[in-house]
């Protein structure tokens, strides 16, 4: 899936585990089903764990972009549960 429009942005670089996932989860909650969010996160623990946790919640990971400043942009499509 190459073509997508980002509906929302979130930045979780200002918090550490487990607040990284909590903040991402709250940001995802605000979206409608099918909307796309770009989540900025730090290298290391956040990028290792947050994408997996988001996937476990049933959302669709579209892409992980590596920024020049050693942060990442995780592009996620919201999949509404139930």
């Amino acid at each position: 899936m190459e073509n997508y429009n980002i509906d929302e942005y979130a930045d979780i670089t200002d918090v550490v585990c487990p607040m990284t996932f909590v903040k991402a989860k709250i940001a995802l909650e605000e979206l409608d089903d099918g909307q796309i969010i770009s989540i900025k996160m730090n290298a290391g623990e956040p990028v290792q764990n947050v994408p997996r946790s988001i996937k476990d919640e049933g959302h669709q990971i579209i892409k992980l972009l590596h920024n020049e400043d050693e942060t990442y942009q995780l592009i996620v499509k919201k999949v509404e549960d139930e």
Partner: protein
Amino acid sequence: MAFTNEQMERYSRHIILSEVGVKGQKKLLNSKVLIIGAGGLGAPVGMYLAAAGVGTIGIADADTVDLSNLQRQVIHTTADVGKPKVESAKETMLAINPDITVNTYHEFVLASNIADIVKDYDFVIDGTDNFPAKFLINDACVLAKKPFSHAGIIRFQGQLMTYVPGEGPCYRCVFKSPPPPDAVPTCSQAGVIGAMGGVIGSLQAMEAIKYIIGKGELLTGQLLTYDALKMEFRKIKLPHGDHCAVCGKEPTITELFDYEQAVCGVNYDE
């Protein structure tokens, strides 16, 4: 309603859980639970529900804190002796979580006032220590179609069950009517191990939380008993009483009434 940073952090361990998440935490914040009895059972229930962010907690109890309560009623402290239990409980709950509202009812629940108190709540906790109150709470909840958690503790034993309207038996289906006054000791006469309130009260808080977030299976149609000395939990299946006087097909109890209280040891606080 969006979470503040403080709420996000306070409830983070709930929000992480897939069964709770943002939606479940919002349900908790919007929920209203009434705790009847600020004693051995009501203490842990109140503290855990406050900590969980149950947005409105009602607490009913006519008593004041006594030194003999402190061995098990962990919501009260030595400095609270002499204070109304509902005030002491409110202070502790708000100290744990200022994010919530606590309504106090400094009175015994009776047929004359209980319906008016219960009507504003989503879930009721029976944390009382005597049969008249337990039957009254059951009848009031059945007639008002309110779910509630029954529990009782004495010595080294505890029990609980959950009533949800239309989903299984009520307390009266199982225990038809109270034993005669003084035939059975209350825990002020019989004694109770302090941690028993913690075990059973925490299970009541868990039932309330599961009901509010709508996850898991409740203790409907079953009685859970705990024997601390044998370290044994048992779940007993309960049949629905088609002939139950209050929730059966042809109920004979259609209005609330009070049973006679035992002369000794009338405490509404376990």
